[in-house]
């Protein structure tokens, strides 16, 4: 479990950085404070010394006693080829704080990481899950200078065969590999041929990536969802989630993108067939997950399989519930006031603010995939991803820290600017 952030030089370098992180070694836990040191204060950021790596791990101080560190939380898991040994010295703020730590690999093996066309990369990773699992995900970088796009195509698989091309891999999810014009819609991540900031949350089950291009936060997820079922009932809940359905879309201002907590696909020849998120069903088919289709600044709601609370499944309006005897709700006071479901994208008619009190609690709402057709069913949660209201003093890259618990990083959803278009990712 690792929270890693940094900067890549471009869309291809980002691919290399994600592979390095997924297959590398990072700080997994701080097991004890070996020495509290002196001169520290809560919120100090301490950098771990020693070891060999490309990114040094950091912790934030969560509690002190007379200037001595008594509690820390991982702030940056770092990336090492050789981890430092205990007790690990630190730098920053006070002096003398040393930590006993656990470093381990992040749980993924690169089955394929090669250039397939010029410098463009194709990657297939195998996640270990609980140690007995094999979770196959991948992506291919591609670009067009005339088209001004520098993107990733995201895919999931059910296995890996080294003798097959990526599009030929077993159980491959929908995407550009279909080749025929007008049927290339899938799960894509718009990037850039310039500097890209990133934040990654990696577990052996899934990789969550937020790529920062200018002032936009393009996001994606590859790996297993948190199923509402046992492993035997839903053995391979593979999730492939991007934030754009058209392969030739750009990260510029030409189109609105929306991922993870509110996936939108794009209208038009290259985007409207499917995407930008898929979950593999128990019957082996890929279920398209989307909340809307966007055309310019107008969206058309989708309800077949959505991510709530930003999406609205079929049954959420009385008139749409079938059979009628499953109808529960009234429509006079709906969530739709906070997250407008109307065609015009714009201001909400009600704002959800942090709960009042001396603590001012900002709520994290699970991002849950709900299927309406053909069977009404709550399929799964997006692991460690939450919808969050942007009203109140909340902005991109802010952190929500639970006293004694985890921290969550807030991002606006891609290049959207509405206050209800934010997500939070748990820093693990």
């Amino acid at each position: 479990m690792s929270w890693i952030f940094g900067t890549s030089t471009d869309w291809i370098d980002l691919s290399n950085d994600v592979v390095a992180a997924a297959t590398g070694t990072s700080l997994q836990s701080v097991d004890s404070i070996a020495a509290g040191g002196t001169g520290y204060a809560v919120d100090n950021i301490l950098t771990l010394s020693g070891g060999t790596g490309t990114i040094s791990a950091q912790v934030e101080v969560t509690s002190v006693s007379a200037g001595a560190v008594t509690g820390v939380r991982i702030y940056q898991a770092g990336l090492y080829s050789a981890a430092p040994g205990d007790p690990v010295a630190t730098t920053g703020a006070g002096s003398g704080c040393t930590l006993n730590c656990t470093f381990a690999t992040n749980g993924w093996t690169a089955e394929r990481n090669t250039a397939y066309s010029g410098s463009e990369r194709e990657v297939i990773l195998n996640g270990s899950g609980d140690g007995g699992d094999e979770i196959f995900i991948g992506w291919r970088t591609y670009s067009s200078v005339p088209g001004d796009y520098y993107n990733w195509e995201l895919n999931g698989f059910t296995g890996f065969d080294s003798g097959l091309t990526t599009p030929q891999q077993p159980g491959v999810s929908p995407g550009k590999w279909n080749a025929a014009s007008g049927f290339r819609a899938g799960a894509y991540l718009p990037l850039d041929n310039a500097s890209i900031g990133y934040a990654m949350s990696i577990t052996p089950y899934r990789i969550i990536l937020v790529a920062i291009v200018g002032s936009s936060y393009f996001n994606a997820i590859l790996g297993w969802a948190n199923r509402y079922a046992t492993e035997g009932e839903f053995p391979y809940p593979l999730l492939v989630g991007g934030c754009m359905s058209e392969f030739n879309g750009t990260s510029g201002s030409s189109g609105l993108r929306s991922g993870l907590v509110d996936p939108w696909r794009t209208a038009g020849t290259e985007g409207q067939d499917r995407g930008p998120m898929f979950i593999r069903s128990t019957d082996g088919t890929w279920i398209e997950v989307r909340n809307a289709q966007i055309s310019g600044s107008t969206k058309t709601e989708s309800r077949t399989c959505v991510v709530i609370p930003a999406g609205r499944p079929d049954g959420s309006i009385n008139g749409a519930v079938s059979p009628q005897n499953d109808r529960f709700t009234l429509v006079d006071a709906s969530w739709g006031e906070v997250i407008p479901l109307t065609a015009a994208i714009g201001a909400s008619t009600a704002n959800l603010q942090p709960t009042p009190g001396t603590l001012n609690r900002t709520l994290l709402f699970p991002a849950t995939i709900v299927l309406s057709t053909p069977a009404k069913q709550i399929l799964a949660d997006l692991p460690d991803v939450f919808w969050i209201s942007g009203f109140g003093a909340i902005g991109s890259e802010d952190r929500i820290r639970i006293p004694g618990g985890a921290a969550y990083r807030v991002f606006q959803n891609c290049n959207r600017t509405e206050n209800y278009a934010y997500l939070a990712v748990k820093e693990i």
Partner: protein
Amino acid sequence: MPYETGTATSIEDLVSKFDTFITANGFTRDELDLSANYGTWHETGGTLYFSLRWDATAQTDLAIYQSTGWTSGQAPHQQPDDSGVGTTAIPIASGRRVNFVSVGPFTAYHFFINATGDYVHVVVEVDAGRYRHFGFGKLTKVGDWTGGDYAYGHLWDQGVAQIDDPTNISNYLGLDAGASTPNQATMQVQGLPGVSAASRWMVVGAANTPGTDRAGNVRVSGTGGARGGLWPYYIAWIPSSALNVYIPLTPIPVVYRDKTTTPHTWYWMGVQPDKAIVNMTNFNPGDVITIGADTWMVFPWVRKQFLQANTEESWNAGYAYKKIT
């Protein structure tokens, strides 16, 4: 015992058994006057005060009151800071109440309470397969705002357009969204944004004007419950999964709506403890759901039935109550 079931011969007998149960499980009786047909109780050591009143001559309705204290010798609606939703007159034909549409005997009652006496939730099987719900408790709050004590009744409209429609806004139940005061649930709140210092009450589910309490102080609007949108709006209706028959037990939220701002501002206040919304497609009334170490009992809102024949029915809408034994 934090759960009890039994039978009651009348409303008065039900109240008597209710009194015995809750005073043994974390609540204190302030007054129970069976000759005057009312009683007041409070959470021991807490701020949750509530009263019940019934009619000796036509005992089909049980009026529900909430206050912030108790004064000896005063009628329920005259208790300190009365929330203003209970009737002031007998017979009980208006205000927040439970309309049993029966004088009894009642087929069964179910009292639910937790170990720390944070709530008492009551389910009454009035006659075979027909139910009523009422209760009192403390919201499981988000944050540390002041208040959270709630009271709710159950008024099922007997009109031909309402009696067989659980989505009708003239039916009131739980911490739920109905159409107008004064029949709805109340919750004590203080110091919220847009609330005057004198205000004490949120009317939960008031889509329109929340009105004033007994003393004339303005109440504020809340929403939520099973029918008021938000989380239940999305998933409460979902029946058992075709994959594995899992079914969501949907928490019952309460949201404060500050109408003094434009647009309105919503604040998520918390959820009702140990009670959830459930689709009863695959359940019968009184069925037990076991989730890990927890046990829940499910009941229809009024009757599990979909005939639309002008009799009480609530289709597949149900509540689940955590049964602590």
